[in-house]
């Protein structure tokens, strides 16, 4: 492997290596070593946890404790016939799943899974630290919804169309409060860089009893609430899973999708879940920071302690997602818009103003 890298370095030249080859390799490594296994095992975890919530066992036939179930699922989906309805708009039908998956994966490139390099041999635990990182995240997250709308339209199925329409409605209702709610941590941190935002949450408050995470800030906690509700709505999860409400719209926008194309929508949904959770951890729960310094696991090499803390927090959020799914009924589409426009947007706006005022009055 090092030989290969060296060869690439020589072949491509230092500039090209630094700006094209190295990030590509990093992205591929992140995707195939972290994100895809994570997604497939979250699906398994979801089925297991839902099973235990619902007084049943969940998958336990493929491999020990069902651990090979994700592999069986992927093989099944790959072997399925790929049906494109005759009267579908072919190019849009093919494009839609990619539009959902690709942006969700790109976002992973700016998420800091761990601290930046602490010295000799320790890597940066992120692919890149863009100074407008948060804007990039919001912009990319918005693109994903187009996949749903286009997929719903292109299928030439009335139920799919309604699913697409619902996701359009959902998008305009929830992008806005989400956008406003992330302004609060931006104001508090004074930077758009995700690494910078985490670094701004270092230290403790209240005589060292509470970490200075933004969720423990008087306005930050409400901003977190708004962000989380909007984030769940954006990732189309229960109780906001309207675009694919299976009892109302059969399967919503992906009614006509089968095989791997369906799997891509599926991947996109779970990737979005992880993205929303990861951003929530980064913005409000101090990213890779431990709650107290003595829990920091500093003895682990290469800043791995921080990565562990990040992943722990991430899993906590993912668990909450699954918990919600086991608990709540589904909102109706107009009620969801009510919630977005009448509650979340005003609340987020007020929070932005309040945070700015607080910042103005108490600059420290």
């Amino acid at each position, binding site marked *: 492997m090092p030989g290969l890298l060296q060869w690439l370095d020589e072949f491509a030249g230092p500039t090209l290596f630094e700006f094209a080859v190295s990030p590509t390799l990093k992205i591929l490594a992140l995707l195939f070593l972290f994100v895809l296994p994570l997604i497939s095992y979250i699906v398994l975890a979801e089925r297991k946890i839902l099973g235990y919530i619902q007084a049943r066992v969940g998958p336990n036939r493929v491999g020990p404790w069902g651990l090979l179930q994700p592999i069986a699922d992927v093989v099944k989906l790959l072997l399925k016939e790929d049906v494109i309805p005759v009267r579908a708009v072919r190019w849009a039908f093919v494009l839609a799943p990619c539009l959902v998956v690709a942006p969700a994966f790109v976002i992973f490139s700016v998420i800091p899974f761990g601290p930046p390099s602490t010295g000799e041999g320790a890597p940066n635990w992120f692919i890149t630290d863009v100074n407008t990182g948060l804007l990039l995240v919001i912009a990319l997250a918005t693109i994903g919804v187009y996949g749903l709308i286009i997929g719903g339209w292109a299928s030439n199925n009335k139920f799919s169309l309604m699913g697409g329409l619902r996701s359009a409605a959902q998008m305009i209702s929830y992008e806005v409060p989400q956008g406003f709610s992330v302004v609060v941590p931006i104001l508090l941190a004074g930077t758009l860089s995700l690494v910078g935002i985490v670094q701004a949450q270092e230290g403790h408050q209240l005589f060292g009893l509470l970490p200075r995470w933004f969720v423990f800030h008087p306005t930050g906690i409400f901003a977190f609430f708004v962000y989380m509700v909007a984030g769940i709505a954006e990732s189309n999860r229960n109780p906001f899973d309207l675009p694919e409400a299976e009892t*109302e719209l059969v399967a919503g926008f992906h009614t006509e999708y089968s095989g791997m194309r369906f799997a891509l929508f599926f991947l996109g949904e779970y990737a979005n879940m992880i993205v929303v959770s990861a951003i929530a951890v980064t913005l409000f729960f101090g990213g890779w920071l431990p709650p107290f310094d003595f829990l920091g696991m500093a003895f682990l090499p290469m800043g791995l302690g921080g990565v562990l803390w990040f992943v722990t927090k991430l899993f906590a959020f993912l668990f909450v997602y699954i918990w919600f799914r086991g*608990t709540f009924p*589904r909102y109706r589409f107009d009620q969801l818009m009510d919630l977005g426009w009448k509650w979340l947007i005003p609340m987020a706006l007020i929070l932005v103003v309040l945070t700015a005022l607080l910042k103005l009055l108490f600059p420290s």
Partner: protein
Amino acid sequence: MSDAIRSANDTVANNTVAHDDSVFGAEEMELNFGPQHPSTHGVLRLKLKVDGERIVDCYPIIGYLHRGTEKLFELNPFFQNVPHTDRMDYVAAATNNLAYVGAVEKLIGLTVPPRASYIRVLLCELQRISSHLLWLATHAIDIGAMTPFFYCFRERELVLDLFEQYCGARLTLNCMRPGGQPFDLPHGWVDTCREFLELFPAKIDEYENLLTNNRIWKKRTIGIGVLSPEVAVEYGITGPMLRASGIDFDLRKAMPYEIYDQVDFEVPLAENGDTYDRYLVRMEEMRQATRILEQCLDQLPEGALMAKKARVLKAPKGGEVYHGIEGPKGEIGFYIVGDGKPIPHRCHVRAPSFINLQSLPELVSNHMIADLVAIIGTTDIVLGEVDR
């Protein structure tokens, strides 16, 4: 229940959707909802005219499960028709059995021994519980709450086990005969039943914990599909749907059959006639069914199981009879005409699902598609009975 479970002013005043499409030139879309749709509870087909998600017009189309049951009744001797009744409302076979054998007994003039009567009531109330559990399971999952589905099926399993112990079947029970009961309660059945009754009220609380005060559940059900008492009576709606609209009519109280006049229970009522009230009424009915079952087990007499009767049951010439009982879904009744032969000359079924389903277009007008699903769930139809 003397006072309603929920007072009228509890209603969210305007939970339906206001709409104005004068601004954009909107077009209505025709949408075939079913017969293969996950939440039409079988093979109901609805031809919908929708304006966006708002339902302008709803036209139910039935008959996809038509098996000519009523005609089949004319081909068999009286006692051989009992299995056909199982297959009408296939989640409530015992009440169907009772309605049919009750009608035959009335026609021929048989008196059922008390022990058989008690066993029948036991089976019917268990059936009410199991039918309501299935309703709650599907209704909740229609509205998106996934978990109650599994909880309900867990307890329904216990009821089905009780049926299995009694007659060997779990779904299509075929557990009654004209004149009495075919078998006695097996050894240990009463104890198993008592165990279930001890455990069950806590389980109802568990379902209610998940749903009754859940804000989303309330938002999705309160004020949805309001059935006014007048309309309910005009359509001839019976059962929990009627009682949720505030009309106190329960055949178990109004015209007691079997031994219902000897047990103490209340008929739950509500006032608003919306989806939430129908939910509350059915939940309370399950609790009352538990009460009835307990009393039946306490009072269970010894004695014969079968009335004295001729070896071949023959209906009197020109005899005709209607016998209705309170099924889980409403009044299930059989109208039988005899002509001196051992087979019915004509048999007609008053199927509560069919009659309750008629109100659907009225209930869903001006609601959203998501509400339609909630309303279909709350009418608690079984297509086997609608189409017969």
